[in-house]
C-alpha cells in the first residue's frame, strides 16, 4: 500500500517530538531517590603491577559511602568480562583469552583501566575519595607498537608472544599459484589508524536493587540490553536473568562502542546490590577516550595479482590486528570473520588468502566500530585496486568494471566463505560516475593547477556483509550466541498497535521505520503504531543493534509476526462472516471474502478478538498479539560506489573535499530520508578516519589524543554536503528485500578519500589520517609522509 506514511515514504520521525523539545530521556536524565555516585579510579600507567591498594584514606573521606577494589569483586565471585566469539588459529588451537576482571586486581594493562570504584553521597565526595586512594604501582615497560608487539615483553602470563590467535582464511596454494602466473603484482603496506568512537552521549549507568523482590534494574547506554543482561547474569554472576532487568532508554549514539559489556556498568550494578542503594555513574569525556573500546588499528601488507588485461587472479593479505590489552566482547570476530570474508569485494578474484595475527598491547581494548572489519577490508581491497590501476595505466573505473561480479553470476560464491545473493555493481558505479561528472575531471584538475592547487579523484566500490547474522553460520564459526531477532506485534482492543522489538534505536529511527512497515502491512494509521524497544522487561531475549541488522533481521521478525496477525485475523474474520478461512483475503486494511461484498475492517476484527462473544474458543484463542523470531538464512550484501574529489593546497598540505558522491544499493528502502541520513553520518565517520581522526599513544602508552582538544572530530566546516543516491537490487532472502544502510558510509568512504588524496599528490600512499602536515611532507618527499 503506497501511502504518505507507508513503505517508501520519507515520513518525518516520531522520535523527533521529544528530542527537539528537550524531552528525550537518556540514562543520565534518570535519577532515583537516595542515589549515590560512582567514580572509577583508573590506572595512570599503561602497564604496572598493582602491589597494593590502601583504601583507608578514601574510606575516611567525607561523604564516601564505600570503596570497592578488584579484590573485593573477586572475593564476591564477580566473574570476568568474557569475549563472545571463539576464533581458532591456523593450527586449530583456540584463541588465547587473558583474564579480564572488571576491576584490575594485581596488574593494570592500559592507561585508564579501572582498579577501584569509589561510591559517594555526591559526585564530588566520590571524586575526593578516588583521589585519596593510595595504590602501590610498580611500573613496567609498556608494549605499544602493534607491528613489533609479538616480539615485545609478554603482557599477560597466559599469552605467549602477546598473540591472541594467528588465523587464516582461503586457499593458500591456489593463491600462490595465481601469483606465479601474474602479469603484474600490485602491493601495498598500509596502516588502518586507530579510531575512538565518540558517541556524543558518554556511557552511563544507574544500578538499583529492590530488596522486596530481590530484583536488579540497570539503566545503561547499551545498544543491546539483552546481551548486557545475559553477560551480567551468566558470566558476571550478578543475578539470574529473571531477576535482572536492563533498560536502555534513549541512547545518544553508539557506533558499536555501546554494544560491549564494560567494567563500569558491571561494577555499578554489583555495588547497588552490595549497598542496597542506587548507584549512578556517567563517564566524563576523558574517560570515554581512555576506556571506551576503540576501533580499527591494523597494520597490513597486501598484494593483488593481475593478468595482462587487468583481470584479478589472486589476492594475498597479511594483517596484524590490535586487540588492545584485553579482549572486548566481540573483539576477536572483527579482524577475522567480519574482515577476511570481505576480501573478494565486488570482484571475481578467484583465489584469496588472508592471514590475521591478533596481538595484545598495553592500549585500550579494540572492538567493533561502525563497519567493524568491513571498512578495514574495503580499505585493503580498494586501495590495492586503485594502486594496480595506476601501475598498469588502466582507468580505475574501467579496471573495476572488468572485474565486477556480474548480475548473471548471482548467487555468487566467493573464495572467502560468503555467498552473495544479489547486486548490480556496474549500475552503482555508472550512476556515481554520472553524479561525479567524471568526464569533466581533467578540466577541473587543470583549473586547480592554474590556481596553484592539486586535485585528485578516488573511487571505492565496497561490499559489506550485514544483517548479522545466520546463527548456524555464526555459531559454526565460533559465535557464542545466536544472532536472530525477536519482534512482537500487539494489536490493541481499539485497533492501535504496539510493536516490541529487540532492536534498539539510538539514532537509527526504528520508531518511525518499523511503524511505517506495520502501517503499510496492516493498514492501520501510522499515528496509531507505537514501537517499544530497549528494555529486557518488555521484549523477549533479543540481540539488539549492530552490523546494520535492525531492518533486515529485526524488521523481518516484525514482518513474520505481522503475517501471524493477518493469519489469525483471517480466522476471526472467517468466523464472523461465516466464510471459509481460505476465502478470506486481507488487503488495504480490510478482511474481505473473495467474490463477495462481505468485508470487515482491521479494527472490527481486532475488537472481536478481544470481545469474543460467540467465539469458537475450542478452535480459536481470544486476543490478537503475535511474536516471531527471525533467523536470517544468509547475510545481506549492501554494496555501492563512492567517488571523492579533493583539492590539496601544496603550501600547507590542507586537503579539501570538493565533492563526495555515494551511490549505494541497500535493496528496498523503507524511508529514503532516514536512509540518506544514515549514509551522511557514515560518510562523516569514514572521511574523519581518512583526514582527521587518530587515536595516538606515545611510546609509554599514554593517550595523546585524549580529549576534543587533540582528537579531531569532524565538524561542520570540515565536511561538504554530500551527493547521495541509491540503486536497488532487492535482497532475495528476507521478506522486505532490504539489506541495511547503517555502516555503508563508513565502510566505503575512507578508501575513496585516500585514493583521491594519493591521486592528487601523485604518491602511492599517505598514512591516515592525511593531516595537513602529513600531506605537506608527502609532497616534499614525494612519498610516504
Amino acid at each position, binding site marked *: 500500500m503506497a501511502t504518505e506514511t507507508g513503505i517508501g515514504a520519507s515520513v518525518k520521525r516520531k522520535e523527533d517530538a521529544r528530542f527537539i523539545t528537550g524531552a528525550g530521556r537518556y540514562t543520565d536524565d534518570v535519577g532515583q531517590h537516595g542515589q549515590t555516585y560512582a567514580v572509577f579510579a583508573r590506572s595512570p600507567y599503561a602497564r604496572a603491577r598493582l602491589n597494593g591498594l590502601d583504601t583507608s584514606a578514601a574510606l575516611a573521606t567525607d561523604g564516601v559511602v564505600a570503596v570497592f577494589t578488584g579484590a573485593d569483586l573477586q572475593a564476591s565471585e564477580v566473574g570476568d568480562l568474557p569475549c563472545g566469539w571463539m576464533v581458532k588459529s591456523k593450527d586449530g588451537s583456540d584463541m588465547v583469552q587473558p583474564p579480564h576482571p572488571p576491576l584490575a586486581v594485581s596488574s593494570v594493562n592500559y592507561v585508564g583501566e579501572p582498579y577501584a570504584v569509589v561510591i559517594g553521597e555526591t559526585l*564530588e565526595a566520590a*571524586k575526593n575519595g578516588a*583521589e585519596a586512594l593510595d595504590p602501590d604501582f610498580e611500573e613496567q615497560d609498556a608494549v605499544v607498537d602493534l607491528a613489533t608487539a609479538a616480539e615485545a615483553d609478554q603482557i599477560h602470563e597466559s599469552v605467549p608472544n602477546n598473540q591472541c590467535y594467528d588465523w587464516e582464511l582461503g586457499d593458500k596454494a591456489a593463491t600462490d599459484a595465481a601469483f606465479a602466473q601474474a602479469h603484474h603484482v600490485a602491493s601495498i603496506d598500509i596502516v588502518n589508524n586507530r579510531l575512538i568512537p565518540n558517541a556524543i552521549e558518554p556511557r552511563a549507568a544507574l544500578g538499583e536493587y529492590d530488596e522486596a523482590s530481590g530484583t536488579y534494574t540497570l539503566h545503561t547506554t547499551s545498544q543491546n540490553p539483552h546481551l548486557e543482561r545475559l553477560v551480567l547474569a551468566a558470566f558476571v554472576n550478578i543475578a539470574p536473568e529473571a531477576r535482572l532487568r536492563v533498560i536502555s532508554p534513549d541512547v545518544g549514539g553508539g557506533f558499536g562502542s555501546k554494544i560491549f559489556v564494560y567494567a563500569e556498568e558491571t561494577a555499578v550494578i554489583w555495588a547497588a546490590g552490595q549497598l542496597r542503594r542506587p548507584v549512578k555513574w556517567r563517564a566524563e569525556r*576523558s574517560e570515554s577516550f581512555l576506556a571506551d573500546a576503540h576501533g580499527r588499528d591494523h597494520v597490513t601488507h597486501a598484494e593483488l595479482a593481475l593478468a595482462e588485461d587487468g583481470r584479478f587472479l589472486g589476492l594475498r593479505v597479511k594483517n596484524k590486528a590490535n586487540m588492545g590489552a584485553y579482549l572486548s566482547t566481540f573483539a576477536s570476530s572483527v579482524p577475522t570473520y567480519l574482515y577476511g570474508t570481505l576480501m573478494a569485494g565486488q570482484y571475481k578474484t578467484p583465489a584469496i588468502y588472508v592471514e590475521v595475527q591478533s596481538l595484545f598491547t598495553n592500549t585500550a581494548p579494540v572492538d567493533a566500530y561502525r563497519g567493524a572489519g568491513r571498512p578495514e577490508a574495503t580499505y585493503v581491497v580498494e586501495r590495492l585496486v586503485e594502486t594496480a590501476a595506476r601501475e598498469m595505466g588502466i582507468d580505475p573505473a574501467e579496471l573495476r568494471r572488468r572485474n565486477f561480479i556480474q548480475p548473471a553470476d548471482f548467487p555468487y560464491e566467493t573464495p572467502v566463505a560468503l555467498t552473495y545473493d544479489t547486486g548490480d555493481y556496474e549500475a552503482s558505479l555508472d550512476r556515481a560516475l554520472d553524479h561525479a561528472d567524471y568526464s569533466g575531471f581533467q578540466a577541473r584538475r587543470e583549473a586547480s593547477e592554474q590556481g596553484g592547487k592539486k586535485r585528485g579523484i578516488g573511487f571505492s566500490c565496497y561490499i559489506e556483509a550485514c544483517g548479522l547474522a545466520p546463527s548456524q553460520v555464526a555459531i559454526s564459526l565460533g559465535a557464542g550466541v545466536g544472532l536472530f531477532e525477536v519482534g512482537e506485534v500487539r494489536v490493541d482492543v481499539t485497533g492501535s498497535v504496539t510493536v516490541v522489538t529487540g532492536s534498539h534505536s539510538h539514532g537509527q529511527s526504528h520508531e518511525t521505520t518499523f511503524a511505517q512497515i506495520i502501517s503499510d502491512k496492516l493498514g492501520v494509521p501510522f499515528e496509531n503504531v507505537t514501537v517499544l524497544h530497549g528494555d529486557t522487561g518488555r521484549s523477549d531475549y533479543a540481540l539488539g543493534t549492530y552490523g546494520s541488522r535492525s531492518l533486515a533481521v529485526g524488521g523481518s521478525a516484525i514482518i513474520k509476526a505481522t503475517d501471524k496477525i493477518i493469519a489469525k485475523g483471517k480466522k476471526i474474520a472467517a468466523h464472523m462472516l461465516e466464510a471459509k478461512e481460505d476465502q478470506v483475503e486481507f488487503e488495504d486494511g480490510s478482511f474481505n471474502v473473495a467474490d463477495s461484498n462481505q468485508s470487515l475492517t482491521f479494527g472490527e476484527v481486532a475488537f472481536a478478538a478481544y470481545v469474543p462473544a460467540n467465539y469458537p474458543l475450542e478452535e480459536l484463542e481470544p486476543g490478537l498479539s503475535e511474536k516471531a523470531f527471525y533467523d536470517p538464512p544468509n547475510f545481506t550484501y549492501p554494496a555501492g560506489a563512492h567517488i571523492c574529489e579533493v583539492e590539496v593546497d601544496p*603550501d*600547507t598540505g590542507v586537503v579539501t573535499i570538493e565533492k563526495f558522491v555515494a551511490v549505494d544499493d541497500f535493496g528496498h528502502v523503507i524511508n529514503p530520508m532516514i536512509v540518506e541520513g544514515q549514509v551522511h553520518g557514515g560518510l562523516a565517520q569514514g572521511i574523519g578516519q581518512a583526514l*582527521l581522526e*587518530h587515536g*595516538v599513544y606515545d611510546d609509554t602508552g599514554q593517550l*595523546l*589524543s585524549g580529549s*576534543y*582538544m*587533540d*582528537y*579531531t*572530530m569532524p565538524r561542520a566546516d*570540515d565536511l561538504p554536503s554530500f551527493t547521495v543516491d541509491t540503486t536497488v537490487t532487492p535482497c532475495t532472502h528476507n521478506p522486505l528485500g532490504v539489506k541495511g544502510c547503517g555502516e555503508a558510509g563508513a565502510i566505503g568512504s575512507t578508501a575513496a578519500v585516500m585514493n583521491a588524496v594519493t591521486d592528487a599528490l601523485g604518491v602511492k600512499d599517505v598514512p591516515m589520517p592525511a*593531516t*595537513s*602536515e602529513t600531506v*605537506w*611532507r608527502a609532497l616534499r618527499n614525494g612519498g610516504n609522509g
Partner: protein
Amino acid sequence: MYQFNYHKPSTLTEATSRMVEAEEGAYLSGGMTLIPTLKQRLAAPSDVIDLSGLPGMSGISIDGDIVSIGAMTRHAEVAASDAIPALAELAGGIGDAHVRNRGTLGGSIANSDPAADYPAAIVALDSTVRTSIGPIAGGDFFTGLFETALREGEIVTSVDFRIPDAAAYEKFPNPASRYAVVGVMVARCGDAVCVGVTGAGPHAFRATALEEALAADFSPGAVDGVAVDSSDFNADIHASAEYRAHLVGVLTKRAVARIG
C-alpha cells in the same frame, strides 16, 4: 571541581584585595580556560574572583589613532567592531561562537596560552597593556609559556592599540581544538613592518628576520628564503616544529598579499 569561594567584587581595589587575602586566588574573566581547568580538577584555587562586576572594564573606544579595548570586552564584540579590521578578523576566528560570546581580551592575554590568537596582535600592533598597577608595553608583556609580565594580583584593565596603516591576520587552526597552530599578524605603520607570531613558540613573539625582509620589500616574495628559526618551537601530534616554521612563512606571505 574542587570547592572554592566565589567572589564577584565591584571595584578593582576589592578585587585585588580578595586576591591578596586568598590562600590561592584565581581571577575569572570569561572563564573559557579557567572553568574547563577547574572542571578537570587541574587547578585548585581557594578563591575564584569574578571580574565581570568591575565597572568600566568593557567596551571599545577610539581616541585619535589609539583604540582602547576594555579587558572584559568579549571576543564577539571586538569581532563586530570596525576599529581595526585585522583585529576584528582575529577576534572573529577565536574558538567558536560560544567562546567568542564569553571569552575576553584580558583573560586571553593574561593566560599567555602559546596557541591563543590575541597575543599575535599584542606584539604586532603597537600596543600598551593597562593594568591595575600601570602600563606594560605590548612587546614586553609575554615572558614565557603561560607567563606574562603581570605581577602578583595585577589585573589587566584594558589594552591600547595604535591603529596600523594596514594589517592582516592569518591563522592556521589546530583541527581539533581550533586554537592557532600558527597565527601571524602582519602590520604596517609607516615604514615599519611588524610580524607577530603566535602558536609557534612558547609565547607570542615578533619575527624580526621577516620584518627586516618585508621592510626592505613589502611583497610576498620577500618572505622566500628568510629562515625561520624553529629551535624553540612547539611540537605536538598536530604539527612538528619544522612544519610550524614553514607555516610561519606561508601565513606571513598570505597576510602580506592581502595587505597588498
